[in-house]
């Protein structure tokens, strides 16, 4: 660090830089990864693949928005993937299934199915919130229990079967193309398009709303303050428990919606299909630079984190290597990103 003399003592350039570093570090990680994969493979750096990466991350993105709220308050939600799975299965459970699907389900009108399903997501969130704020169970344990309960609900609803039908709206949003980006024509004179799926649009809306709420609303301010110093928020007369309860409900609703779109995106609703989403969502939030100790970060960081994760997941598929090594390498890259995050935190504390 340079130590140029600063006239105004109150301005702390080191502190200012350290704060930005939270965003700069993951951004540099992202750039480095993109350069690496672009230079080592020919298939990675294409427009097609870029949209592909974004599509692959869009369901995770919706979950990560809710999780960002939770992590900003210095809590954690381990039930996101399980709740997504249970809610995705619930929406299928309320939809007429083909004859060959042997599930004893309750078909309902599409809208009623969606509303009931949303209520089930809300219920998961409320139970978590109640356990944490009224009974006083730490979020780590409470959401671990909810994870198991949600997995249990999934198991009971499908009983090892697979469902394929969802309300029309869900099918559209989860699996249909919203619009196409024209890319000109190929050598044969055929017009080229890149399809942009509805999941990407929905995910973008969640980003925008999430960012808006966190940055421009009173509730968002409370989320940051509760995460920044819970005791101080309490002594300032902020209803800390209400804020904690609210972020847990938001997380459950985001997970639920991601789950509904996810089953349509996958084309099937079955047990354990969201298992990798828990780690991805948490990793995206934290790798993006949102502090696990709360109070610092935001949706912008989460977007960067999602892109880092998306690039790693996707990029490794373009490299010629032992697929069994990829799992390990992915873990190592995540570890490196987390180490950077912790060092930024320490650097910031000192500054």
């Amino acid at each position: 660090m340079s130590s140029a003399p600063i006239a105004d003592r109150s301005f702390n350039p080191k502190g200012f830089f350290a704060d930005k570093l939270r965003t700069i570090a993951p951004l540099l990680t992202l750039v480095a990864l993109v350069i690496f994969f672009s230079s080592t493979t020919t298939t990675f750096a294409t427009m097609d693949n870029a949209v592909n990466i974004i599509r692959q991350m869009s369901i995770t993105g919706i979950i990560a928005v809710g999780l960002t709220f939770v992590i900003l308050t210095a809590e954690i939600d381990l039930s996101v993937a399980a709740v997504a799975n249970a809610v995705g299965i619930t929406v299928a459970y309320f939809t007429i299934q083909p004859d060959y699907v042997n599930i004893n389900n309750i078909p309902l009108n599409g809208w009623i199915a969606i509303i009931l399903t949303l209520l089930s997501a809300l219920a998961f969130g409320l139970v978590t919130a109640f356990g944490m704020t009224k009974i006083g169970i730490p979020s780590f344990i409470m959401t671990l229990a909810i994870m198991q309960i949600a997995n249990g609900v999934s198991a009971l609803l499908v009983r090892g079967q697979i469902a394929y039908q969802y309300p029309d709206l869900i099918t559209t949003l989860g699996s249909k193309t919203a619009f196409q980006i024209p890319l000109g024509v190929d050598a044969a004179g055929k017009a080229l398009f890149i399809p942009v799926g509805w999941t990407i649009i929905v995910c973008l809306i969640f980003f925008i709303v999430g960012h808006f709420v966190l940055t421009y609303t009173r509730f968002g301010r409370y989320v940051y303050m509760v995460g920044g110093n819970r005791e101080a928020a309490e002594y300032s007369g902020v209803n800390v428990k209400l804020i904690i309860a609210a972020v847990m409900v938001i997380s459950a609703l985001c997970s639920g919606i991601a789950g509904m779109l996810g089953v349509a995106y996958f084309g099937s609703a079955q047990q354990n299909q969201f298992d990798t989403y828990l780690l991805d969502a948490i990793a995206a939030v934290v790798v993006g630079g949102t502090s696990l100790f709360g109070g610092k970060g935001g949706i912008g960081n989460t977007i960067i984190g999602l892109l880092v994760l998306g690039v790693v997941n996707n990029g490794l598929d373009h490299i010629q290597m032992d697929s069994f090594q990829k799992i390990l390498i992915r873990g190592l890259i995540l570890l490196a990103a987390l180490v950077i995050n912790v060092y930024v935190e320490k650097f910031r504390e000192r500054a």
Partner: protein
Amino acid sequence: MKSPVADATEATVNGVQTPLIELRNVSKSFGGVVALQGVDFSVNPGEIHGLVGENGAGKSTLMKIIAGVHTGYEGEMRVEGRLVQFRSARDAIAAGIGMVHQELSVVPDLSVAENVFLGVQPVKAGGIIDWAGMKAQARTLIASLGLDLDPNTRVGSLPVGVQQLIELSRVLFSGARTIILDEPTSALSPPEVARLFVALRKLRAEGRGLIFISHFLDDVLEISDRITVFRNSRRVATELRANLDKDKIIGHMIGRGSAEMHMGETAVLNARQDEPPLLAARDISDGRSLNGVSVELKRGEITGMYGFMGSGLIEFARALFGRHAFSRGSITLEGKPAHFRSTAAARRAGLAFVPENRSMMLFRTEPVYKNVSIAMLDRIHKLLVKPQEEREVAKHHIKDLQIRPPLTDIPLGSLSGGNQQKVALAKWLTNMPKILILSEPTRGMDVGAKEDVIRIIKTLRDKGVSILVLSTEPETILTLADKIYVVKRGAVVSELSSGTVTKSDLLAAA
């Protein structure tokens, strides 16, 4: 160097013998701030040496030097005649010095025997804990302090006084010949104090040396053979018990007769007699720290609550603000019953609270203006935040309270302590609270900042706010209060609402 003070340093109780502990001309400073200056101090075998002085007079610095916590100091220390230079608390323990802290370090979920032998369980061959031996030894040790107790009892289920004796027996087991007791009676009921004194006299009879640090002058006078008084980092007197009484000790503590009369040495109280109280707390008890505290706060009046550390002030302030549950008693606000389940409810009812520790109240990494606006966001905006308005409000307070530097957007952590305290106050001032509760509002502040804060508090009083100031510093209370409650062991022991009150009155009452 001979200090010009009343002196019984050389006097011994049992004739000529080698002191267990002897310090000569010991000085210690922290980054330029002198904490101890040229102190002589000794403890003899078979002696209880009382140590008194106001907060910050240097008692705890001295104890930490003896206990090996502070290692760098000037002067010399001898243990049983041997010159020593401890490098850690471990060295001090090995040299036979034990300490019982005010905050007990027993483990509530372990048994009596396990607590006595914490960390040094006797083992049989193969590293297996010798439970039978441990229990038998524990029983003997505790019995030697006059306690008949099943060693299997869970310590958490025992009264504080007994827990303290268990900690004392742990110190004894470590082989301590000199034992430092820091505020040992502050949490004890009178019969428990009596039992502790029986145990301490037994230890004295065994030839051990005890250092008894306390704010409770009656206790010190009852148990001590010699008493040393500290004031402003110096030892101002060491005298045999027989030559002292409470008035003399207080005189030494506050330096009566010295030409300098400090701010807040005396106060003329003038409480409002006529008006009904704005807030009345009756008989607030929590079964531990509070034993029936009753106070009345009036509009446009500063109520002071004075007490020693551990007297229940901290808990009482939190009980009023909905942060500390109480099992008995009631609060009425403007004549109507009020029981706040959360700090948010208390705030909505018009209460404001600034805790004694700034870090409990402020967001270090957030800009100043967000720290100011947090307690009134719901008044500035319904849904969306308006940072520009928040900055305007903050600017207003920065100017009003002379917060330096006068910037709204720098992180709070870059401000000095006194300015941080002003920000903590500022957050409650935009929408005037009905009742402002201030715990230790001037602690750790330099004189300039202290005066600023006192001026701000008085201005608020004149604007009609009812203010409750809780402090362990008599000066703060005397400077501010219109009415004073003295709190001792979780109960109000004295209510002063008119006439002249001096610092010695407060010290004598508490």
